[in-house]
């Protein structure tokens, strides 16, 4: 009799434990192939690290239950149609309760249509374009600083260093890059910088010769633009091999990736507006510090984190925080918690716009400007050069020190 009773209690215990051990399913696509794959993978690693650390600590604890995080993901091949089909599948078939965005503004805009049609929350990261949030959504939440703000610090710095500089804007013809360039150009003109060249190229361009010739002909001394990793890296390489003689070069996205070091000499002096760098020393209200995050990331992936990875991890943190605050995984409750989020993590301050006209737009987060410089041993290293509060090194300016000199040689000469 006692044995039966013990068995019964044991079974009851297991049953309650199993009931208490729930899962929350988060769906998203990764660009395992296609032009966005370098950046997308870094974002994925951020998600993954967050999931593994939280699950190891017992899962998300809300409303008396603890939820193990489960991912459902597919390869979107960097293509919008696939994103739509896959997000529809993840919501309808795989029953994902929450969604993360794919990488890039373009793909995110596509996914947003599906998530809004189905009334599901999507936390977007790796997606800075403003327009998606101005179409009347209810459940989108943006982690990244919007595109309209991307170049503000870079241009301020440029003006401070050389107010007579002549700026060329050359961006990829996709929604994100053109939004950044348009906002950048307007801001540049507002603060009194001279814009001498402004053109867009097709995102799959590999031959930048014609554009670089035109930039040289326009006598530009500062070059701002680019797109994502593939075209950004090629631009940097070709600007270098064609000796474009620039004093300032700022490219979107590409120089943010650790892979950029493959360019060798061509990477010197290139700056990137960054959503996050290891040196950004924010004091988090919850979650790891920047240094802890970077250390755990390096240990797991044998490579330093880029700001896409940080964005991925932070997206997880913010969602987790909102679920905890709401005490449930119900969409309406979590949305309400997200709308009232005003928190600082290692990534920075996160606060979402709540008005209907631009719901979900990120209001609290700030960009920094990073630059590839050489450390004492001659190795390429990224330093934060702006703003002053986050600065870890002085900017190297101008980049072009004279004929046939790299920064390294110029430094030696000094």
């Amino acid at each position: 009799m006692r044995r039966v009773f013990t068995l019964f209690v044991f079974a009851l215990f297991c049953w309650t434990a199993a009931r208490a051990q729930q899962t929350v399913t988060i769906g998203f696509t990764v660009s395992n192939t296609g032009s966005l794959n370098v950046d997308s993978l870094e974002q994925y690693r951020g998600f993954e690290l967050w999931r593994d650390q939280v699950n190891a600590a017992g899962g998300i604890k809300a409303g008396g239950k603890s939820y193990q995080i489960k991912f459902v993901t597919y390869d979107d091949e960097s293509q919008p149609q696939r994103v739509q089909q896959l997000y529809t599948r993840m919501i309808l078939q795989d029953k994902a309760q929450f969604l993360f965005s794919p990488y890039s503004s373009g793909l995110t805009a596509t996914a947003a249509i599906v998530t809004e049609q189905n009334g599901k929350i999507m936390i977007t990261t790796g997606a800075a374009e403003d327009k998606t949030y101005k179409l009347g959504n209810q459940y989108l939440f943006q982690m990244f600083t919007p595109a309209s703000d991307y170049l503000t610090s870079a241009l301020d710095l440029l003006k401070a260093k050389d107010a007579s500089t002549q700026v060329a804007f050359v961006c990829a013809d996709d929604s994100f890059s053109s939004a950044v360039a348009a906002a950048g150009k307007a801001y540049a003109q507002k603060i009194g910088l001279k814009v001498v060249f402004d053109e867009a190229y097709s995102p799959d361009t590999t031959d930048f010769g014609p554009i670089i010739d035109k930039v040289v002909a326009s006598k530009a001394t500062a070059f701002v633009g680019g797109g994502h990793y593939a075209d950004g890296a090629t631009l940097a390489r070709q600007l270098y091999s064609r000796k474009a003689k620039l004093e300032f070069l700022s490219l979107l996205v590409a120089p943010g990736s650790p892979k950029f070091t493959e360019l060798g000499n061509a990477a010197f002096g290139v700056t990137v507006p960054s959503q996050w760098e290891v040196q950004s020393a924010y004091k988090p209200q919850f979650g790891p510090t920047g240094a802890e995050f970077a250390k755990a990331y390096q240990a797991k992936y044998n490579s330093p984190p880029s700001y896409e990875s940080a964005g991925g991890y932070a997206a997880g943190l913010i969602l987790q925080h909102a679920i905890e605050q709401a005490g449930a995984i119900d969409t309406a409750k979590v949305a309400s918690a997200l709308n009232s989020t005003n928190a600082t993590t290692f990534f920075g301050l996160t606060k979402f716009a709540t008005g209907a006209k631009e719901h979900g737009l990120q209001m609290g987060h700030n960009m920094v400007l990073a630059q590839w410089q050489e450390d004492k041993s001659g190795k390429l290293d990224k330093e934060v050069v702006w703003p002053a509060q986050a600065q870890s090194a002085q900017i190297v300016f101008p980049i072009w020190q004279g004929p046939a000199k790299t920064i390294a040689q110029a430094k030696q000469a000094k």
Partner: protein
Amino acid sequence: MIFKRPFFWIVIGVSALLALLPLWGNDATLRETLILSAVAVILATNLNLMIGYTGYVNFGNVIFFGLGGYIGLYLTTVRGWHLITAALAAGLAVSLFTLLFGLAILSLRGAYFALATIGILEAVRAFVSNFAPWGKAAGLYVSFAVYQPLGGPMRAVWLAYFLVIAVFCLSLLLSLAIKNSKFGLALFAIREDEDAAVTLGVNARFYKARIFSLSAFLPAVAGALIYFKSGMIDPGEAFELTVSIEVIVMMMLGGQGSIMGAALGAALYEQLRGYLLTSPSLSHFQLVIAGGLLLVIVQFAPGGLIGWLYRLVPGARRLFE
């Protein structure tokens, strides 16, 4: 009349079934799968009018779909038109566009015509990538407010689905009607030997232009509906040469010239593709498998699946054509 042909009733029956099945179970997943197959059939059967009936290979057929999508999305999102009027307008506009370009290039024969269609496809793509009112390379995005007059996003998506099934039905019936008409006979004559046909008094220029623009109408309407549903369009995706060629492949797989063949090939290819899309190991193999299939069919069984089926079951031909 075509009401006498059994295929007419088969088409009506299948269309009704497709419309009602997902609705009964409120099964959105089934709807998503079926809508893709329906679109594939629409594109393949209308292309069959050009390639199978008339013998002119249109490599640019995706233009109809893409331009229809652009015009439809522009009219609904920017101009606030109702979905149905926008879709019809898109169909008419694209037909007219096709007629104009057709008059220029239909004098070319064989491979030259095919190449010209590729040229037009790429030129249209380049143009739209630079066309500011249509968003240039970034494309157009639907504003979520557009769903309100249709009763909210969920209902709008269902409406789009039913309309697509209607277009599917019309495509098949159109193919059937043309096949059994004098118009169809003229087209077949052109396909077999255009010069002989002209000598015998067939006004080839007129018929070619008519079928070319007609083959554009329903795909354009479908494009407007589909792109409305997916909420966004950009030139890279709307005017992709590979999609155009895949439609040709679907038609060949099923069996060119045959309505059932085009429909069957399209439906099967789309199912295969959908399966391979989510299979992690095989998603790249979609191309290899499709390519292999195509190679075998072209070399050894140019009549396609349906050709093989008709040889197996001769009575089937009377039923399905």
